[in-house]
């Protein structure tokens, strides 16, 4: 597992990968390191920013309440957190049956207005649009992998499948995404 820099608008910390021997959960560090990732995953799954905000807050609250019951032997912190977020998101899906499309992301005003950057932005928009057309199961796998930054083992833990199966699901979802991008081109 990689040590990866955490994307956060307010705090920039490096979260160590979860160790099976670490007895206690550092919830504060986990929150700061995973807040935006959880939101990205939930927003991709629900395709509704308002619902994603609610569900993300709810997921962190649930995680905070359950932090005492966290067992490092049963999986990493991030996998545990994204499992909770997944339950909250699916509960929300079931309750509200929201299918609204994800609102368009605001333009990156800080990006340099070069041709290369514009081209890259167009590609990202095409991928984002293609992603929105995929079924929820594929969207979820892709969001967990590329938005939440989980490796295949953590992906498997969150989805409740084997590691090999998780890799297969990911490959299949990415292939579908490739096809959707090509179809829209």
């Amino acid at each position, binding site marked *: 597992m990689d040590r990866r820099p955490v994307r956060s608008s307010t705090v920039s910390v490096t979260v160590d990968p979860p160790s099976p021997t670490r007895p206690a959960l550092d919830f504060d560090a986990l929150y700061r390191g995973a*807040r935006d990732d959880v939101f990205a995953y939930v927003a991709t799954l629900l395709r509704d920013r308002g619902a994603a905000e609610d569900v993300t*807050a709810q997921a962190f609250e649930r995680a905070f309440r359950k932090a005492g019951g966290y067992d490092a032997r049963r999986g990493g912190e991030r996998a545990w957190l994204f499992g909770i977020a997944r339950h909250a998101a699916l509960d929300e899906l079931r309750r509200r049956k929201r299918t609204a499309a994800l609102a368009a992301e605001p333009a990156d005003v800080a990006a340099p207005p070069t041709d290369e950057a514009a081209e890259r932005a167009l590609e*990202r928009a095409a991928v984002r649009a293609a992603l929105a057309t995929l079924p929820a199961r594929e969207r979820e796998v892709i969001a967990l992998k590329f938005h939440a930054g989980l490796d*295949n083992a953590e992906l498997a833990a969150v989805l409740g499948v084997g590691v090999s199966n998780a890799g297969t699901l990911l490959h299949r979802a*990415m292939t579908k995404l490739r096809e959707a991008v090509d179809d829209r081109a």
Partner: protein
Amino acid sequence: MTAPDTLPPELAELGELLREDPPRPSPCWAARLDDRAAAGFPPPPRRSRRSRLQPLRRALLPAMGFACVVALVVGLATLPPEGEDESGGSGSGGGASTAVQSEGGTSSGSSRDDSTGSEEPVDPAPGLAPPVPPGPGGGSPGSDSRDARKQERSAALTLAAPPREIEAVGDAIVRVTDAVGGFVVSSSVAGGSDAGGTFELRVPTARLPKALADLSRLAHVRERTQASRDITARSVSARERVREARLEREGLLRALARATTLNETESIRARLRTVNRALEAARASVRRVDNRAAFANVSVALVADRGSAGAAGEGGRWTPADALDDALRVLEVAAGIALIVLSIVLPLAILAGLARAAARLGGRRRRERTLDAA
């Protein structure tokens, strides 16, 4: 299909584009969530007391029901099984239950034959000591002149003593009987595992209270029953027969003195023999009635007190062996209660576990179905 952690280049490029452009939360929302996280996610405004108590009540109801069942089972388990005590009585065990039973009748002039000695037994009150032998008599003791009336008294005692003291208490019963001027009609004492005994005593009626008091001091009194029966009518009847027989005998004697012929003399002598036998029988009847009034029947049942056997050893001392016995008994009772509770709790726990597992599985399937339908 293999499942590597890395993707083919064309898919990895898509992944890079995805990584560069995740949905980002609004700074305003992020700041609010940061504040809530810093505050430890304070709970939402409290609901009303009634709505807060509703789930608690729902959760407590089965628990209270279960607690009632457990309390009932424990209560039943701690009750001594019926018939365990050798006394077989229903005494409380904490003290003697005394029932004074008196009966009176109006059978003066009764034509019953005293020589049979058969009296109708009187049923004691339910749950008391064995019935006292005497039966109905005549008149209420308090209804007329007490001095002139004859009373037959009886009593029954159930004494409980530690098994090792049964024989000593038996000896003491005999000593008390002798001391009050009474005698033992019959006795039976057994030692060992079936320790116990029975005593049929006759004590002077005038000293019955002292005899009962002395006997009661010998051991723990489980039951005590007293009864009295008015036998005035029988006494009067017997004495009347004696008087009539005497009068008839005197008349025959006078007739014999006047007899002149041999046949007449023989006939009167024959009648005299018959009257003499009747007179003797009537006198015996009077003696029996007087004896019944003069001596009271006392039945003593001596039983082994198993409970005190464990508590007090030889000579009433509490020895380490007694302590071990007590400890074993406590462990036995505790193990029995635990077994009963376990037999109730275990199936419930298994059912609860299965229900919980089914609920979790159902919830997971519902979520997965939601994901497929989305």
